[in-house]
């Protein structure tokens, strides 16, 4: 048996279950690898799909579950996160910043995968993808379980989103 018993017993996830997995995984990543405290502001008050002066890191799942975990972060906060992770002064969008945000998405993907697949063989993770821009939108094109968690670091905010579908 490779699926957690409580997950296997359920047909899907409630928003609150998904939110708890994401909040726990995000706070662990930020406290241990970024050395910043990320406080959650769950639930999100209004859907957000449009991002300005931001960077988005994404990792896909495939297998027993399919979906995407994504981190959406304003560029100014992403620079601070990158500086804290690498112990350098990051003041522009560059390879370091893209890699740092991609790696955060990768670690969050690993955290969620561990909930979905105890054994780890029936769910595959993609290599991270990172996009950034002055003004862009991110949309899921299918009606599947989706939850977005707002987080705060000081006065600055970022989002972590998870879309998830169990393949029958």
């Amino acid at each position, binding site marked *: 048996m*490779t699926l957690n018993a409580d997950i296997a017993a359920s047909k899907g996830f409630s928003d609150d279950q998904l939110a708890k997995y994401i909040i726990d995984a995000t706070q*662990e*990543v930020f406290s*241990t*690898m970024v050395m910043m405290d990320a406080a959650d502001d769950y639930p999100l008050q209004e859907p957000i799909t449009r991002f300005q002066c931001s960077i988005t890191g994404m990792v896909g799942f495939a297998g027993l579950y399919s979906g995407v975990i994504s981190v959406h972060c304003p560029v100014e906060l992403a620079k601070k996160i*990158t500086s804290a*992770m*690498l*112990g350098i002064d990051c003041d522009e969008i560059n*390879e*370091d910043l893209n*890699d*740092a945000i*991609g*790696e955060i998405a*990768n*670690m969050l*993907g*690993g*955290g969620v*995968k*561990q909930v979905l*697949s*105890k*054994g*780890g*063989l029936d769910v595959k*993770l993609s*290599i991270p993808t990172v996009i950034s821009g002055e003004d862009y939108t991110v949309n899921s094109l299918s009606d599947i379980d989706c939850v977005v968690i707002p987080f705060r670091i000081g006065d600055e905010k970022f989002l972590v989103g998870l879309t998830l579908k169990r393949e029958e």
Partner: protein
Amino acid sequence: MANILIVDDSSTMRKIISRSLRQAGLPVDEIFEAGDGIEGLGVLNSGKKVDLILSDINMPNMDGLEFVKSVRGNGNNTPIVMITTEGGEEIIAQAISSGASSSIKKPFTPEQLQETLGGLL
């Protein structure tokens, strides 16, 4: 003092691991970096003295499991520790059966590195 090879496609993670090794007070001399298994094999085949290998699993070109098999297939018995987001029991079991010594789950603390690597250095 030990020379360590870090194999990870994330330059951020390679830098964090390097910093954490020193923060953990481990006896580290030179650190070599590789972005995937193929580059890792290149470092090992270059004749550099490597005492410990730390490898990610999920990488492009050659993943960590193939890398471990190739290193062992070349008759190299240097200890290999997987440092990975892949915490699943079956994947870790595959890595161990291929020749890895142990694993560390990302995210990790310097203390966890010290605990797992201390006995290998």
